[in-house]
């Protein structure tokens, strides 16, 4: 019998499944795509379960969702420590030194990420309304994420952070000084993000451009270039108004969230 391809992450699934075993997206619903090509991130059903390595993740709740992870021996996840909702007493925790301490402090980023090791269960919540976006990351792939937007990453992901280049981009880009970068080696990884409101993704072709409200930016493939562009408007005989937008240039995926802090106008 034919296997079912997940429209969100392209993983193959057994025909009897109603949700993707890799990302949890419903398999019995069509992807919702707007006329201009933005795909709505799949709204995960309450209690949806999916796998990574030998472990499972279950998403609970729909308004302020919780990711409950059942970690197998040898598996681990990392996260910012304040997202931990509960854990079983026997789950060991360790710290990941992210490096760049002073620079991260200036950028408002946490110095240390927590790592939870299996076996055992742990639950993470971003403590804010929105949706969990599940991104399986294929081997040798890089993805950049807005700071503080990541909920958890699996042990097969390498974590680093990249400085946003250009003073204009830092001051008016609305994404802070740094972006989190997640890179996979030879094994597939799983990244859980938290998006405020609803999340939409668009795949840009080589050289294709889109202008995005800087506060709405959530993630992008590292192949997508992000520049802050200034739009200047006359508001009278003498006055003018500047507005800053993030220009995304393909190729690659771009994710935006519909609830954000407005940035970039003066």
């Amino acid at each position: 019998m034919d296997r079912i391809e997940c429209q969100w992450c392209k993983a193959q699934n057994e025909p009897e499944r109603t949700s993707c075993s890799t990302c949890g997206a419903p398999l019995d619903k069509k992807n919702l795509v707007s006329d201009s090509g933005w795909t709505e991130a799949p709204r995960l059903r309450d209690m949806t379960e999916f796998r990574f390595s030998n472990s499972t993740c279950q998403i609970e709740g729909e308004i302020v969702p919780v990711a409950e992870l059942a970690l197998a021996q040898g598996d681990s996840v990392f996260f910012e420590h304040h997202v931990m909702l509960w854990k079983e007493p026997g789950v060991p925790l360790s710290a990941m030194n992210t490096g760049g301490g002073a620079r991260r402090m200036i950028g408002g980023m946490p110095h240390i990420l927590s790592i939870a090791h299996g076996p055992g269960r742990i639950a993470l919540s971003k403590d804010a309304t929105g949706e969990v976006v599940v991104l399986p990351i294929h081997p040798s792939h890089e993805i950049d994420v807005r700071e503080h937007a990541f909920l958890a990453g699996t042990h097969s992901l390498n974590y680093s952070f990249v400085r946003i280049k250009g003073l204009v981009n830092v001051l008016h880009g609305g994404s802070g000084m740094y972006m989190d970068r997640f890179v996979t080696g030879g094994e597939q990884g799983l990244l859980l993000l938290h998006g405020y409101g609803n999340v939409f993704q668009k795949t840009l072709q080589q050289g294709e451009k889109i202008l995005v409200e800087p506060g709405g930016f959530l993630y992008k493939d590292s192949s997508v270039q992000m520049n802050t562009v200034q739009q200047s408007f006359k508001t009278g005989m003498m006055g003018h108004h500047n507005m800053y937008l993030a220009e995304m240039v393909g190729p690659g995926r771009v994710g935006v969230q519909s609830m954000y802090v407005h940035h970039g106008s003066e």
Partner: protein
Amino acid sequence: MSATTYTCPYCRIVSDATGTTCPHCGAPTDVRARVTKSGWAEQPPIRDMARIQFNRSTCQISGKYVPVAEMRLDQEDSVYFSHHVLLHSEPSVRLDMMKMAGGWNRMLAGMPLLMMTAAGPGHIAISADHPGETLAVPLPANHAVDVVEHRFLVATGNVGYHWENSGIWFATRNGDDQEYHYPLGQTMDRFSAQGGPGLLLLHAPGNTFIRDLRQGEQILVQPSGLIWKDRSVRMHLHFEYPRGNYWFSSARWQAKSVWLVLQGPGRVAIQSVFEPPEMAGGIVNSSGATTQYW
């Protein structure tokens, strides 16, 4: 509904009966209207990815929690909106500022100083950036509606925009302090379709209910619950004082309710999220109001 036409119970516009959503306001056509016994019709949320037609362009509503209005603008069409609601835009869309009169007064009233216009061709997306529902209010030619401030999301280029003092206020005295209250806000937005039908999109937190008021019919609503009304609907304040003497019925803690009276004829829309007016002290002055002592 006849075999070939459908009259939407929400926007009252006739269309063919082929789709599952009204092409003018996005309301689903395949669900039974939900009307309370007192006559309030629940405005059904616009379905994810439903399309609304306006002029030569379309608007598609996506997302359920914090919905996004994505517009495919034709070369000949344009829309305007407050600049902070812009989520994304194709580079081909021409963005510009809209001239606004009365900037100082708008700033005092807490209204956005800048409106932006977007002209096709291309796609542009607007988000109110708050949980709630997007309401589509198609305006027949030469029809006007009054909208409570901060509910406006986007309007088509042929919809005229003015703002006026709401004319709804009261003053309280607490000791030597006198404070003025504007339960509807200091101003209201007025939108009118000019030269042809137009489309107005609003954002409402919570759920939305609409009703038709007959000539002279009155209803009392929480002032901050109002979203929009037909221009023909008149309004004034109504103060109610409960019967009995309580410790909080002193001049300082005067027990009272402040209502907004809506009087027909015309349509009104309210939202289920509201904030009762804050008021310590007795009411000493107000715009035109009625009073009831129980």
